[in-house]
């Protein structure tokens, strides 16, 4: 009794797709027929090598995809980019350079529509605000997994500049993670954008995380600038030291005040 298996069945065996009775018969032949066994082992040896080759090619392809994904991500960030903040654990000096022209464009729309008032000083503080302010745009990370959905939703609203909807969600996260500095800053910006200056003031002032304190200082300064509180704006901006987040910009503003 000679059971024959054609190449198609052998290929199925090699790719582990052979099942049931056919597999049983195949194994039986392997155990009884030395020549057949040797032939299948040789084919399996080659088969594994080809699969290794395929894997290596696929790994190379995945590396390419990874590079593209990372590149897209970074150009997206640049595009949307507002003040890019140091993420935890990153060195301060690696901060990307900011896009001031875009900042001005975004902020002009916000600033100019409100506060066009008669006095020179107000005009100039609003001009400064408009030229220097841009919202913080970073994906918000939370520690608590249950807060993640809320954070994602809030970030989405925030990115779409729907500060009214984002604010209550950020506040909710702060209930469980009151010292999450990224969320604190995002909350403060929502309040600033919505004109709730007192609240924004409190929120930015509450940031204690040393990695984010500099950003909070800057936005606190912007908050004072927007409501034309020149005295406080000046004090805060003067507090931004050389090497700090936006030191040069703070100096520019101080020179113009």
């Amino acid at each position: 009794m000679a059971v024959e298996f054609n190449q198609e069945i052998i290929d199925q065996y090699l790719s582990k797709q052979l099942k049931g009775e056919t597999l049983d018969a195949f194994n039986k032949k392997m155990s009884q027929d030395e020549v057949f066994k040797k032939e299948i082992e040789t084919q399996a040896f080659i088969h594994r090598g080809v699969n290794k080759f395929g894997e290596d090619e696929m790994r190379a392809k995945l590396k390419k995809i990874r590079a593209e994904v990372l590149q897209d991500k970074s150009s997206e960030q640049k595009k949307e980019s507002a003040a890019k903040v140091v993420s935890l654990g990153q060195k301060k000096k690696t901060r990307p350079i900011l896009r001031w022209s875009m900042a001005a464009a975004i902020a002009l729309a916000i600033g100019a529509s409100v506060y066009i008032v008669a006095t020179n000083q107000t005009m100039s503080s609003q001009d400064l605000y408009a030229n220097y302010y841009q919202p913080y745009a970073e994906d918000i990370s939370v520690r608590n997994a249950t807060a993640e959905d809320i954070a994602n939703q809030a970030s989405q609203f925030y990115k779409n500049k729907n500060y009214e909807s984002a604010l209550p969600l950020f506040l909710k996260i702060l209930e469980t993670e009151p010292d999450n500095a990224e969320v604190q800053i995002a909350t403060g910006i929502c309040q600033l954008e919505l004109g709730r200056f007192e609240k924004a003031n409190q929120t930015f002032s509450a940031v204690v995380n040393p990695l984010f304190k500099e950003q909070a200082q800057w936005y606190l300064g912007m908050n004072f600038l927007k409501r034309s509180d020149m005295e406080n704006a000046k004090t805060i901006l003067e507090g931004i030291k050389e090497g700090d987040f936006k030191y040069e910009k703070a100096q520019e503003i101080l020179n113009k005040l």
Partner: protein
Amino acid sequence: MVNKPDGELLEILRGPDQISRDKALSEVYRRTYSTIERMITSNSGSVADAEDIFHDGLISFYKQAQNGLTLTCAIKTYLFSICRNLWLKRLRKSGRSDRLEDQHNEIVELDNDPEEFLIIDECAGLVAENLKNLGGDCQKIIVYSYFDQFKADEIAKLMDYATPQVARNKKSSCLKRFREQVLEKGKAGGSLRQCLESYL
């Protein structure tokens, strides 16, 4: 690609259309990577480990797809489960840990060991080297048949052959040629010879 449902992505990944496949692969990458990076970096792994495990996981997933995998959950969930399994194994192997801090990610029970779909033996690497040298259409046809598991009619289309039978004939002559080449080289000695002796 961005809004394609998972079932469709899986079909495209399985199919022979190279351009669509690459796009689907890239889409799966974008949808899934960050969750896996988070899982690994919060379980004593680095970003490089995450990349490594994710790529292994994707290859295992691809092989399973070619073997007729039917999904009962999102690709993301399935891939996550594969990578979680791979990472756990690696942690255990290096004696670092035998459990993971999970972060409420959905997990699905796997029917197979995902590592089984990956080739790790060194001898296979030597055979792969030879295939690299083979080059040309023969190399393509062999990879399409064995790695991608494309059928004769799909290979005929890809290689622009008139009929599936032409593809079948080509495949068998290419495999014959390649196999002879490997065995011939093995006779000459070296590590390939040791491999052949221990395997065959």
